[in-house]
């Protein structure tokens, strides 16, 4: 989606086919959304005999522009499966241009939630209000982790056991580093540390994969979870770990005022024990969960290392990777201090 006139023309034809207003429908507004690092997102407003309303278009960006490549068909199947059960608050998926025949690139069209992201609101509000937001976010997390995994689409793999799953996630760090055109010793350090310091197991659940305050929308009727492209079945603590990870690179940390209250509420909602859910185990998962984003980022960045890509988004990942090293090392140091763990 590069040329605005072409895009709005494609969108108008797309919506005219699907909305009651038919040919009378016009595109009343088009606004690309900043902040997404993987998909090309836009707000679109249409006007017809039913009045004016908004939608979100979530599309594949041009080749070489995304930091993470994921599949829109799989995302669409997941969104429709989640939406059909009505147990997790998320924007309703409405239409899918699978091949990009109509919108130029594979695109998902969703309802527009009238609200702001939690990160945006938290930055405007006093810190004393953050914990209340965090506890609401906790409920969203618990609803995700309580989802019946048998209702997920077939492409989402369900691991055989917790140990197999964790071992495979740890191995991802080593395999990715060895395949990387440059060398990144932090990745092999993380793998070594995780292997030597496994926490008590937890039941495997649906994991959002990018559970953070930038992906929560606050509307008048509640909190909504967006950006599901990294969802999978895994350890639910991955989401809490990633939330902590992201709170450093995209502050504020909404649980900073009282992390114990957040973890206590999460235990209450999920029935998991304090051995399983505590600050130290979440630090372990800060490191483990980071693989979901860190490794694709490094893989995309490799194109810059090889001279095959020059997009600013992927070039900027040089800074992001270094920033992530900090978060990983801090989590490791905290985990070591809390558990005495080194080997």
């Amino acid at each position, binding site marked *: 989606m590069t040329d605005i006139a072409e895009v709005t023309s494609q969108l108008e034809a797309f919506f005219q086919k699907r909305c009651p207003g038919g040919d009378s429908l016009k595109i009343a507004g088009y606004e*690309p959304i*900043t*902040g997404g*690092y993987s998909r090309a997102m836009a707000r679109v407003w249409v006007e017809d005999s039913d009045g004016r309303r908004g939608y979100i278009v979530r599309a594949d960006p041009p080749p070489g522009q995304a930091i993470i490549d994921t599949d829109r068909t799989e995302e669409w199947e997941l969104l429709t499966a989640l939406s059909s059960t009505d147990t997790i608050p998320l924007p309703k998926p409405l239409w899918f241009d699978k091949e990009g025949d109509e919108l130029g690139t594979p695109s998902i069209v969703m309802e527009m939630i009238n609200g702001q*992201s939690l*990160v*945006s609101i938290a*930055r405007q509000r006093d810190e004393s209000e953050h914990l209340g937001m965090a506890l609401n976010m906790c409920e969203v997390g618990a609803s995700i982790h309580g989802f019946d995994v048998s209702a997920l689409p077939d492409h989402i793999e369900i691991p055989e056991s917790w140990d197999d799953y964790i071992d495979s996630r740890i191995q991802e760090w080593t395999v990715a*580093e060895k395949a990387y055109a*440059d*060398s*990144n*010793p*932090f*990745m*092999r*350090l993380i*793998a*070594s*540390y995780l*292997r*030597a310091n496994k926490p008590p197991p937890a039941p495997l659940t649906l994991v959002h994969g990018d559970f953070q305050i*930038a992906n929560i929308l606050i509307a008048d009727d509640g909190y909504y979870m967006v950006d599901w492209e990294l969802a999978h079945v895994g350890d639910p603590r991955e989401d809490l770990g990633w939330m902590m990870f992201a709170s450093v*690179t*995209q*502050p504020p940390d909404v649980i900073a005022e009282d992390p114990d209250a957040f973890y206590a509420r999460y235990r209450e909602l999920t029935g998991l024990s304090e051995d399983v859910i505590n600050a130290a185990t979440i630090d372990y998962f800060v490191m483990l969960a980071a693989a979901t984003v860190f490794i694709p980022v490094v893989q995309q960045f490799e194109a810059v290392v090889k001279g095959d890509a020059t997009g*600013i*988004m992927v*070039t*900027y990942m*040089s*800074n*992001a990777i*270094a*920033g992530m*090293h*900090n978060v990983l*090392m801090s989590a490791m140091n905290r985990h070591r201090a809390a558990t005495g763990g*080194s*080997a």
Partner: protein
Amino acid sequence: MIAKPSTAQLIEAVNSELASKVSPELDAGTTRVVLDMAMAVLQGAATRSANELAWMREEEHAVAAVAERLVGDLPSATGLAEAYRAYTDNRSDSLYLADALADYERISEVLSCSAEAVYADGDPARIAAVQELFEQRLANENAVIGSFQAVGRT
């Protein structure tokens, strides 16, 4: 060659113009995010241009000193021994960036293998010695990026 102003000074001059003259003209949209990212990359490039050759050589010597001891102490760590041999057999000490990068990549593999070897061994003193090498590397990265916060995430 024209050595002064330095590469870092040239980049910083460009960044200063972007910050003072271009940035204020842009609304908070995708173009603004692109500019903010570009300025962050340029700032890092300025810092790197002034320091990276020295930093790579300093890290290299520190890793080599620790690795030499580990190779002697941990004979079962064959991966580490091989990586260390590859480094010592090929190191160049040249000041050309491409040569320094090649040495740095080989010593980075030594550092990776050192981490794997000390965590497999479990001795706290050896783990601490390797951990210090990572802290040194991290300190240099932090000098490049400053305090990282993702641009444009609202």
